[in-house]
């Protein structure tokens, strides 16, 4: 399937796209929209009004986990970290969120396009999940 989101990506869009690609739809292809409008034939995510978006106090990453019933070890902890990094009032809910917010800003700035930021961010998220899982095994 094709998925679309707002351009100039940050933590929740990168992490959510990674979640879709790794756990929901291996063939997912991502497109970006500059004005937040719907791209026909795509599933929008992290956009105003999108089913896969913010709902209540949940960020998009948490919505996707909930909607698809994802139970992979470490995802719940990752969700708390991403939530804090995305939602400013909750940034101190985990020790990691402040650093993760900065790390994703760095990913965006270090990459020339949103597509490249996604590729870089996906590898980072792979590592982050492994790190969280390894911590749980200690």
């Amino acid at each position, binding site marked *: 399937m094709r998925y679309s989101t707002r351009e100039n990506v*940050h933590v929740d869009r990168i992490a959510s796209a990674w979640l879709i690609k790794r756990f929901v739809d291996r063939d997912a292809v991502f497109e970006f929209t500059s004005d937040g409008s719907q791209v026909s034939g795509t599933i929008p995510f992290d956009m*105003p009004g999108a089913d896969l*978006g913010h*709902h*209540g106090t949940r*960020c998009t990453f948490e919505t996707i986990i909930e909607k698809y019933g994802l139970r992979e070890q470490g995802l719940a902890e990752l969700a708390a970290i991403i939530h804090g990094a995305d939602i*400013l*009032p909750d*940034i*101190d809910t985990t020790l990691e969120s402040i650093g993760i917010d900065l790390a994703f800003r760095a990913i965006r700035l270090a990459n020339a396009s949103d597509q490249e930021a996604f590729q870089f961010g996906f590898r980072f998220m792979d590592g982050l999940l492994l790190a969280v899982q390894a911590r749980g095994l200690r």
Partner: protein
Amino acid sequence: MANEWALLVYKLPSLPSRLRLSVWRRLQALGCIYLQDGVCVLPRRDDLFENLQYVAVQISEGGGVFHLLTSKGSAEESEKLIERFRILADERLRTALTRLRELELKLSDIGQISDFERAEDELKKERVAFLKARRLNYFGSDLEVEVEAALDRVRSELDRLARGAK
């Protein structure tokens, strides 16, 4: 950015009160200033605007209505708002400074390991409180430097006490 503002105008159903409280808390945590009931303002910054959109979703899903607007204020109006944000930032940082000075005074009474551990915990809490206050210091407050210096002093003193205890 200094003359541009994000305005959230909203109305919530009177019940449930937990929704009103949750929205109010989130807006407070973003450092919003209420211009009147249901009308709050923040500097127009992309990350802050995005977070106001998140709160707007919560308002809408809770049965409320909202308008999220960007407004360009005159220099005079903007200066009034900036001053209000500065006063609030100063208050937060002054409170942190007061607590740190109290902690500094307590350090001279440390005798037991448990006192030392308590002081370490308090310092950690103060550092987190400072990070929060600094995040909301949108227009710069000189007190930030003073709080950082006080944090460093307490850290140094605790390190000195720890070395002496060995």
